[in-house]
Every structure is written in structure tokens, then in C-alpha cells.
């Protein structure tokens, strides 16, 4: 067992798969609900959360950070809403202002006060999946990389959430008004989705960083939309795409000596291109 | 073939607007089917029909904003490119960015932009004409007000002024009275009637059946197909109208003028507004 986790390649691929998978899972619902760019906003906004949490508590990882991130993610959405509701700034401009501003402030704070800790702006932006195996924690006598653990937990949590609230998520995706009328509480489910997205973003930060998180959230989901008829299909295709991208990406990165995170994210483009070509029609007809 | 209900006399009038077999498809949905609209010069015409009937689409085809999948359009005897300068367009208010920094005068002046050469800017002459147009619609004192601060009716009047300033022969208006307060409605209708009396042709997409006969003397009933067109009386009495709008009461009400309680069958104002 230990040998497995000592295998760097295996660890990296597994981390990538869990990061991509957890992200794509939530991303499917967000995209279907027309909230794709929320992932962009949240992933950038949480950086402020990370910076502030670090300044307040000194923690760079762990449940404290996850909570701080959750709060920051929700805050990003709330502030954007408030700005747009004021009537003085259009919605798209509000979005394009709030999360970059929060991100910029977060990066600034990290640059000033977290120089020597591994939450530097570069890591935050691009992740360092190649080094995740360095930081391990003992689990049942096995030294398991911390990221893997966190991402594994996150994946399970997201899976549980989706399974538990599938009905409501599906209903709200297509008609939030109806869902509310039928007592399916779309608002609560929305909030849950946002919070989990924020937490997943923090968990995935180590591995792939802020922007590639967005890639994993949106591209697999879109592949799902192109290939599948129903929501369940969309989610499954998204997960498949994410898994494929993690594996293929690692293989390509090692073979060509390129950025692992970048390759994994870029590999989501392969299923996308396939979905866009006539192959798709063949698939749909079979 | 659309039932043309024109009397032999009106058949001889020259046409301000003629479409021939215009067909528009949005993907697999047919929005307009072989519509051959013929509006005579000098008509005060309304384009009516239920939600989704394609009224706005037809207007846009006529103005060259949408290319039809089939069919041709003739305006004032010529095709669009030649007739453009003589056609004034008053679009629906919903298409515009009302947060744009501009006052009413600025917006009206934009109606003259196409007259200016490639690199020229509007000058005193243009501003003068814009001011005159605003006076015509009763908005002269609000000339310097930001458009985002105007009421719906005032915005509509500004749009009308913008078309007026071009001094066109044919006016095409898309739901000019939707969501407009009584004072603005009166002002707009007054201007339209003045224009019509001076020989201009007015074609408006209109949603309120109650005021149809009061304001317009020529109607075209559209529901993807052109079901009927001709003098208002004739269209209102037609089978096509009854089939589309159901109740005889509504028909009578529309023909006679303002009629109190709407019947259950008639499309409500809210539906009509939500339409285009």
C-alpha cells in the first residue's frame, strides 16, 4: 500500500483525477444552470479568503482554510449581486470587477505577508501538482499525500451532496421558479452548491491552481452537454472526460516534459474536439 | 394565400410596403410563412396577431435586420438599399442599452448620423432639427435629461423623435405603445395621426385590441401566415379575426372603440407585452 503512494506518478495521476473529478462533478450542475462563470468568479475570489485566513490564523491548509474559502466564495457572489442590484453597474461588469479585485487583493496580501509559505501567487495560479507528493500525513500507518486526502474527501463530499440533492439540483437547473414552488428549496441547494464549489476550489488549488480549476469545471460539463441527452448523462460524460484528461495529461506531460497541470487541463480539449466533429453524430445515432 | 380584403378602389393605391412570399425559419421553427403583405401609401396601418405570430420578425425582415429564407421586400417601390433614407424605424425599447450616457437630444441627433459623411460630426444644423423633433413629440423641456432617467413613455417619444428627424415617408414602429403611460400614448398617437394626415405611411406592430379601430384604419392579421389584410372594418369582421381572437365581444369592442371588460378569450395586455 505504501509502495503505491510512494509511486510519484500514481500519486500525481490520482490527485489529478480527484481534483478534476470533484470539480467536473459540481461544474456539470453549474454549467447546466447557466452559472458557468461562477466557477471563474469563485476560484478567483477564494484567494482573498486564503490570504485573510492565513493572516488571521496562520494556517495555509486544513479545515480552517476550507471554511475561509467557503466564506470567500459566497462573499464573492453576494458582493457581485449587491453591486449589480444597485443599478449603477451592469451584471457582467460587476462580475468582471468584483472577483478580479478580490483576487488582486488576495494576491497582494500573499505577496506581502506569505512570502515564504507555499501559498505564493504563482502556486495559487497554476498549482504545483508535481510536488503534491512531498507533503504527506500518516493515515492508518501509510504516508499519504495531504492533497490526495483532502481531494479524496472533497470528491466524496461532492458525490454525497449530488446524490442526496440530485432531484433538487436537477429541478432547479431547468426551472428554478418551479422548483421553488414545489418546495424543493432551490436557494438552499444553490448555497450548498456554491459553498462546495468554493471548498473544492481550495482543495484543488494545490493541484491545479485557480484558472485550471475553471477549465475542469466547465469543459467536461460542456462535453457532457454535447454528447448526452439527460442530466445524468451529462454528469457521467463530464466525469469521464475529467478522468481521461488527468491520465492522458500526465502521460503527455511526462513524455514531452511539460507542465503537468497544464497538460491535464488541456487534454479536456480532446474529448471536446471529438464531441464537436461528426463523430458525435455517429455516437448519438448508436 | 392571405385573404386580401381591400375594396376594388383601394386595390389601385400605390404600395408603400410590399413583401412577396416572405418566409423565415429559426432552425426548425417556422416564424413566417409566405407572407405577402401589401400596405398602401398613406395608410395608418397596424400589424396585429397573437404572441409569437412573427410580427416583430416581419418588421425586421422589411428593414433588412433579418434576412428571410425566401421572399422579397419592396419599400416605396424600391428595394431597401435605395429606399432606406425614406424609412424611419422606431424599434422596441427593450433592445437598447438604457444605461448609455446620453441625453434625449443626443439620441434624437443620432437619427441624422447616416446623413453625415464618413468622418463628419453633427453640427448646429443637426442639433436644431433634433430639437424641433423633440418639440413635435412634446419632449423639448426634457431634451437634456439622461435617457436612463426617462419614463417608458418618454423614452418612446424620444425614439419617435429620432425617426421624425429623418423626415421619412414611411414609418415602421414596433409596439410603440407598449408599457407607455396615457400622456405619452396620447402624444405619440397625435403625432402619428398628424404624419398620416400629411400623407405619410405608418405601419405599427400593435398589441392592444381595444384601441385598434380608434387609431388605425388598415390592419394586417398575422399568425406565422398572413391571415387577413385590408381596411380595419373588413379585417375585424373577418372569419380569420374571429378564429384568432375568439370572442365576438372582443371583435365588437375592438371595432367600436374602447370597450370595458375584456372577455376571457382575449389575449391580455400582459401576454401581448411579453410577446415580442
Amino acid at each position, binding site marked *: 500500500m505504501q509502495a503505491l503512494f510512494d509511486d510519484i506518478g500514481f500519486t500525481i495521476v490520482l490527485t489529478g483525477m480527484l481534483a478534476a473529478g470533484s470539480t467536473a462533478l459540481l461544474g456539470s450542475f453549474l454549467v447546466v444552470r447557466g452559472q*458557468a462563470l461562477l466557477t471563474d468568479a469563485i476560484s478567483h475570489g477564494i484567494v482573498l479568503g486564503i490570504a485573510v485566513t492565513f493572516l488571521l490564523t496562520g494556517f495555509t491548509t486544513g479545515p480552517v482554510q476550507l471554511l475561509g474559502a467557503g466564506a470567500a466564495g459566497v462573499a464573492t457572489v453576494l458582493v457581485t449581486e449587491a453591486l449589480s442590484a444597485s443599478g*449603477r453597474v451592469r451584471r457582467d461588469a460587476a462580475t468582471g470587477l468584483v472577483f478580479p479585485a478580490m483576487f488582486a487583493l488576495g494576491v497582494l496580501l500573499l505577496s506581502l505577508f506569505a512570502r515564504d509559505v507555499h501559498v505564493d*501567487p504563482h502556486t495559487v495560479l497554476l498549482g504545483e501538482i508535481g510536488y503534491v507528493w512531498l507533503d504527506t500525513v500518516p493515515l492508518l500507518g501509510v504516508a499519504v499525500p495531504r492533497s490526495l486526502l483532502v481531494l479524496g474527501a472533497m470528491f466524496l463530499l461532492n458525490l454525497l451532496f449530488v446524490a442526496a440533492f440530485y432531484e433538487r439540483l436537477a429541478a432547479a437547473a431547468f426551472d428554478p421558479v418551479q422548483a421553488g414552488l414545489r418546495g424543493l428549496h432551490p436557494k438552499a441547494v444553490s448555497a450548498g452548491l456554491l459553498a462546495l464549489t468554493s471548498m473544492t476550489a481550495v482543495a484543488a488549488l494545490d493541484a491545479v491552481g485557480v484558472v485550471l480549476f475553471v*477549465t475542469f469545471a466547465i469543459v467536461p460539463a460542456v462535453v457532457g452537454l*454535447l454528447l448526452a441527452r439527460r442530466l445524468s448523462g451529462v454528469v457521467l460524460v463530464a466525469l469521464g472526460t475529467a478522468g481521461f484528461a488527468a491520465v492522458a495529461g500526465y502521460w503527455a506531460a511526462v513524455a514531452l516534459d511539460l507542465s503537468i497541470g497544464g497538460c491535464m487541463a488541456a487534454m*479536456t480539449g480532446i474529448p471536446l474536439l471529438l464531441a464537436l466533429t461528426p463523430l458525435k453524430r455517429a455516437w448519438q445515432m448508436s | 394565400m392571405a385573404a386580401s380584403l381591400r375594396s376594388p378602389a383601394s386595390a389601385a393605391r400605390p404600395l408603400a410596403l410590399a413583401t412577396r412570399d416572405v418566409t423565415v425559419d429559426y432552425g426548425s421553427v417556422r416564424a413566417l410563412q409566405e407572407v405577402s403583405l401589401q400596405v398602401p401609401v398613406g395608410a395608418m396601418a397596424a400589424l396585429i396577431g397573437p404572441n409569437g405570430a412573427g410580427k416583430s420578425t416581419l418588421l425586421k425582415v422589411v428593414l433588412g435586420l433579418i434576412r428571410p429564407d425566401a421572399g422579397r421586400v419592396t419599400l416605396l417601390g424600391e428595394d431597401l438599399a435605395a429606399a432606406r433614407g425614406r424609412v424611419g424605424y422606431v*424599434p422596441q425599447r427593450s433592445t437598447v442599452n438604457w444605461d448609455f450616457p446620453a441625453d434625449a437630444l443626443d439620441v434624437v441627433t443620432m437619427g441624422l*448620423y447616416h446623413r453625415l459623411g464618413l468622418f463628419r460630426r453633427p453640427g448646429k444644423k443637426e442639433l436644431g432639427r433634433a430639437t424641433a423633433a423633440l418639440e413635435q413629440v412634446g419632449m423639448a423641456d426634457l431634451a437634456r435629461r439622461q435617457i436612463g432617467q426617462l419614463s417608458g413613455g418618454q423614452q418612446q417619444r424620444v425614439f419617435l423623435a429620432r425617426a421624425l428627424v*429623418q423626415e421619412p415617408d414611411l414609418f415602421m414602429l414596433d409596439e410603440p405603445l407598449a408599457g407607455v403611460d396615457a400622456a405619452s400614448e396620447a402624444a405619440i398617437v397625435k403625432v402619428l395621426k398628424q404624419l398620416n394626415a400629411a400623407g405619410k405611411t405608418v405601419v405599427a406592430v400593435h398589441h392592444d385590441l381595444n384601441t385598434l379601430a380608434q387609431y388605425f384604419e388598415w390592419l394586417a392579421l398575422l399568425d406565422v401566415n398572413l391571415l387577413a389584410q385590408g381596411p380595419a372594418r373588413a379585417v375585424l369582421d373577418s372569419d380569420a379575426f374571429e378564429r384568432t381572437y375568439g370572442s365576438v365581444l372582443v371583435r365588437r369592442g375592438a371595432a367600436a372603440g374602447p370597450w370595458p371588460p375584456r372577455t376571457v378569450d382575449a389575449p391580455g395586455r400582459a401576454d401581448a407585452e411579453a410577446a415580442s
Partner: protein
Amino acid sequence: MVSLLLDPIVITVALGAALLGMTAGALGAFAVLRRESLIGDTMSHAALPGVALGFLLAGQRSLPAMLAGAMVTGLAAALFSLYLSSLHRIKRDAALGVALGLFFAIGVVGLSYAQKRPGAAAAGLETFLFGQAAATLRSDLWLLGAVTLVAGAVVTLLWKQLKIVTFDPDFAQAAGFDRRRHEALLTGLLALAIVIGLQTVGVVLMSALVVAPAVAARQWSASLGVMFWLAGALGAFSAVTGALISAQVSGLATGPLVVVVATAVVALSLLFAPRRAVQLEP
């Protein structure tokens, strides 16, 4: 203090920042009014592969090559997202997200490839992520100045066309203006606005510099002309302030500083500009 201001490097940095800030801010007025803030963000992130490509093709650090590459991939991403959003069930925001995410990922890969090449360090490719004003060379000023002049000339000459197409595209079309062509031009100007600041502000944050000054300027403007010039001035101010501070303090990337300043300007404008009753609209 005076000697600081007269330092040729400082002057170069300040001048460069002023030019790009002014251009990005002013052109941003059109972008914001046309609700293109998010397209700007996509084009900005999508510029990364272009920067790497420009470097690889030029074989060395060449700002013109890198910015040209950025324009190409940025516009390609915009076109790609347009195509995607025309597909059934793919909405505009998802299409933009795909373009943003994919192109940026490719950019990261390209970056990692380029960084293994000789001369990459000199190219300062990494700095294109968060920007570095101190990387501005004297020679860069020529490019920035030229772009500013060209953009300025185009906007001046075609002012009324751009204005009417921005305000009411349908009416403009009906009045005989070629809406498609002018809208394409406006998108091209947006791409230009973004690309011009990439070295100083970085791909991740550049779009905020395009959006913020225009949003701030809007609070004070009663006409497009005023908004345009004011946005330019506020953009220049934010860029110069951020650039100068980051040039003085080592280890601080320029982009975040510029955006923080620009955001502060927006916040102050929202708080202090005379109340304007706005029509609440989605």
C-alpha cells in the same frame, strides 16, 4: 524624491503605464457599454498561448511578436466561443468559460515549453501572468505609442458610427450602417485594449483594467465623449500608480496593484458621484 522621478527607468515605466492605461481604459468604455466585460476576461486569459507562440516564433523576446500572438489567440478564443454558443444547449457563459479555460491551459503548456528554450528568462514570459511594469523597455514605448495613436485615430474618425452601433445596433443597421463590420471593429478594439497591457498587468488581471475605469467614469458622465476620456484618464492613473509602486518594491507584481487602485477608484466613484436614478434592468 525628485531624483526618483527623473530616473530614466521610472520615466519609461510611468510613460508605458500611462499609455496602456489610457488606451485600455478609454476603449473599455465601449466594451462595458456593449456588455463585453466577460469576453474581455476570456480574451485576456486566452492571450497566454499567443504570447508564448510569439516568443517561440521570434526566437527571442520581442514585444511586437508576443503582443501580435496575443491578439491572434485572443480573437481566436472569442470566435471559438461564438461558435460554441451557437450550438444547441451551450449558453454564452459556458462557451466563454470553455474558451478561457482551454486556451489558458494550452498557454500554460506553451509557457512550460518556452521556458526550456534559451532566452526565455530574458523574455520574462512568467511575468505575463501577473505583469511587471519594470520589464518595460524604452523600445516598447514606441509600440505602445503607435498602438495608442492608431486606436485613437480609428475611434476619432469613426466616432459616430461606433457610438450609434453601441447604443442601438438594430436602429443603426436599419439606418444603413454596417452593424456587423462595426461590431467586429469594436471587438477588435477590445482585443487591442487588452493586449496592450499584458506585459505590465498580466493576462489574469488585464480585463479588470479595461472594465474598472469605464465603470468608474460612467458614474460621472452624461455623454459618451466624457465617459471615454474620463475612463482613459482613470485608466492611466491606475496603471501609473500601480506600476510605480511595484517598480519600487521588489517582489510585488504590477497587475494586482493596478487592479486594486482601479477598484478603489470605482469604489470612490460609486460612493461620491452625484446620484443618478438608473433604470433597473437585467
